[in-house]
């Protein structure tokens, strides 16, 4: 922990200063989304990454926490409850924990497919009941609240999103710290052991079920905290926040970011939130790009983006990271050309009569020349990648060879 103090300090500083960099309404709103999704994705990683439990219904704890938090906001507004809304995430966390204790009591008996399918079934059941019990869940319109009615917190009434951001950042820091500390506890260590070799863990006297149950409850708690933050930020919550789509999204975040690393889900949450909120503004086809990106990531970066960064650890230790910069650049340029041409082709085929602006060119779908240019660019890009790949591979191999026989290697 001592060694990591600078990292945590940097994290805290980044959280404090980020809103001064992205200070538009949209920027703050994206940062707010990130705080929520990072906590949620980290809590999911407690299940899958650290405990080896694949869940298709993690949004249940997020959503239930969120629903109860919105109801708590309304109770505060009606002056039934009197406490500051800064504590709402604790309400969400408590609900998430209770739900996890109840559901985990029977779903954590087995891991693997049985666990996964139970989580799917429970998720669908909760979603269905959310539409049936309209009094609590508000039907498809959800329930709304107002965060500004509570007693002010040192004069802050949370009228603006920026004020909410600092509240979210505080909870993000606290939750991240606790989730990290959890990985260092015996319970966290045993979760890894049960994930990797349940038989052996049983043999040395641990109840695998109990270990899974503890991780499951902790994950439910933090998912509930994220749900509480969601309630404060958006002041409403609907059925879509506990359905399979949300569960799938958090799974993708954790996976794309990198399951094996604590920082992975953070990276994944940041990337996916950015794509979701920005890409859709530029193209109706954004989901297609997102799907392609998923597949490519799964095929080529099985350990996620965090895993990709960590791959360079050996080169870093060998002090040869610098030798990779040029080969990376040489491959990246044609790859970007190919990417741009591909996006151009997709967009052009959906343009109809409109003109597609493309790096200063104006392309039209009915002009053969337009198609020709894009196809040629795509071809050049693909060829460039193909030609430069061997050099990259060679540079990679070189950078990863130990420094001891440094001179012998360079021929």
């Amino acid at each position, binding site marked *: 922990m001592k060694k990591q103090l600078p990292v945590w300090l940097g994290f805290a500083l980044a959280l404090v200063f980020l809103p001064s960099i992205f200070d538009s309404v949209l920027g703050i709103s*994206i940062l707010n989304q990130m705080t929520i999704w990072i906590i949620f994705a980290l809590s999911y990683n407690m299940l899958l990454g650290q405990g080896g439990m694949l869940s298709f219904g993690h949004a249940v704890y997020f959503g239930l926490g969120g629903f109860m938090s919105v109801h708590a906001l309304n109770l505060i507004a009606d002056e039934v409850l009197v406490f500051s809304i800064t504590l709402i995430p604790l309400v969400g966390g408590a609900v998430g924990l209770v739900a996890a204790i109840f559901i985990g009591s029977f779903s954590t008996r087995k891991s693997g497919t049985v666990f996964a399918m139970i989580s799917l079934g429970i998720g669908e059941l909760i979603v269905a009941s959310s539409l049936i019990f309209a009094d609590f869940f508000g039907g498809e319109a959800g329930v709304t609240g107002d965060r500004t009615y509570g007693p002010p917190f040192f004069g802050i009434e949370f009228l603006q999103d920026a004020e909410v951001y600092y509240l979210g950042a505080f909870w993000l820091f606290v939750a991240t710290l606790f989730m990290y500390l959890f990985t260092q506890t015996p319970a966290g260590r045993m979760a890894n052991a049960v994930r990797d070799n349940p038989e052996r863990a049983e043999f040395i006297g641990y109840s695998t079920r109990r270990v899974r149950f503890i991780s499951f409850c902790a994950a439910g708690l933090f998912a509930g905290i994220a749900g509480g933050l969601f309630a404060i930020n958006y002041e409403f919550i609907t059925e879509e926040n506990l359905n399979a789509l949300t569960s799938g999204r958090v799974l993708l975040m954790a996976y794309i970011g990198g399951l094996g690393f604590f920082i992975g889900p953070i990276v994944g949450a940041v990337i996916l939130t950015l794509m979701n909120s920005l890409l859709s503004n530029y193209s109706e086809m954004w989901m297609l790009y997102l799907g392609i990106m998923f597949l490519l990531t799964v095929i080529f970066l099985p350990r996620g983006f965090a895993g990709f960064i960590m791959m360079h650890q050996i080169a870093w230790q060998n002090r040869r990271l610098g030798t990779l910069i040029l080969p990376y650049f040489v491959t990246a340029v044609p790859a970007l050309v190919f990417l741009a041409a591909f996006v151009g082709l997709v967009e052009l085929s959906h343009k109809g009569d409109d003109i597609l602006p493309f790096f200063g060119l104006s392309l039209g779908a009915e002009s053969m020349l337009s198609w020709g240019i894009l196809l040629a660019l795509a071809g050049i890009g693909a060829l460039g990648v193909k030609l430069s790949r061997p050099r990259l591979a060679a540079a990679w191999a070189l950078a990863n060879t130990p420094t001891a026989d440094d001179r012998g290697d360079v021929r």
Partner: protein
Amino acid sequence: MTLILGLRRPQSKHHQSTHHQSKHHQSKHHQSKPHLNSAQSAAGQSLTRRASLSIGALVCAFSFSAATAQEPVRLGFMDPLSGTFASVGTSGLNVLEFAADYFYNSKGGILGGRMIEIVPLDNKQSPTETQLQFRRAVSEELRIIFQGNSSAVANTLNQTISKHNRRNAGQEVLQINYAAVDPILTNEECSFWHFRFDAHAVMKLDVLTDFIAMNDELSSVYIIGQDYSFGQVVADNTIRLLGEKRPDIEIVGNEFHPIGQVKDFTPYVTKIASSGADAVVTGNFGADMVSLARSIIDSGLDVPIYTFYAAYDGITATLGADGKDRIRLIHTDRANPLASDERRDFYKAFKTKHPNSDITQSRLANALMMVVQAMEQSQSTDPYDIAVQLEDMRFTSIAGDELWMRGEDHQLFQPLYISKQTDEGIEFDADNSGFGLLTEYEVGTSETITEHSCRMRRPRR
């Protein structure tokens, strides 16, 4: 369209209603508009920063040009433009963009030469995404937002805008609701910042039940709908209104099914058939509508189906001859025969530009024209000024319909029509299928006026 190489056409986003006016878009950062307050120009500066954040810069080619003309009037259009419900949102966007070009931009713009620019905001028909897109709209200084699909989304937007406007005086946003029909939007939940240009569900049902009541052969009706607020409003009010108008008609079934989850409607149709119903009333939309109608037809049940949303976007083509004389729709747009040459020319021009699309919601053109008239009358684009002008505005649409925007609850009154699906006497078909809607029954504006329970809170200025 030919390729124009080398010509640096000014473009800001790939999705622009018109291309010739977009050069003015850039000027915003350099010229400050006289009535912009400081908060707005701050937001304008951060817009540039936001651009640096965007990954989508890939498809944007910015270029600068001399800012000679005035900056455009930018209107937001928020509806699903990607995902399952995208076809409805995209066809709405086509109509609105086309109407802006056809009525104004091609004739020199509004407010003395300013063009209208429609900015699409894709909310994916999700309440959460709606909030995110709303914040984007605020970032980009879009102060007027057209929105229609899904009452849940409309409710969310209504509440979000109310909170935003209360907390950010001087930066108010106006909601132009062109299709969400949940009655509460102009009743219990009415807001000064919300105007509805569609007739709400109870108004439509009043006309629909009148029409059903006129059919002496009917003795029993089956109601089936999606299990959510609109489906429940349809069921409750059909029962109530038919009970008042034709107590002898028996309601032999009142069924709710989960929205978008039913694979096969045959089990439901079995129940309809064994109930002996003479007619079916449903508020279903999208795939639920098509599947239900298909199952009814396939099982050989020969009963009329009274609906709200059973045309266009592939539905008419899919039901085709099977739906002939069987599907009946309550709607606000006069279908065949069109009422005026002006309306006919508009339709023809639209079909020339979008041969594979239809004018599914001409309400959008009405809404746009009334908003523009409000702008012209107040010589302002400020939401408050527009709202004040819109209240109690009377307007004649291009179809010759008399429209009235009631000031007390911001509900528009317009003639309502009931049409049937057929291929006879169809001048403008749907989905290029040869089949279209033929209007059978119409009710004038004054007869659609209903009571309301709105207690509007007006902002002080």
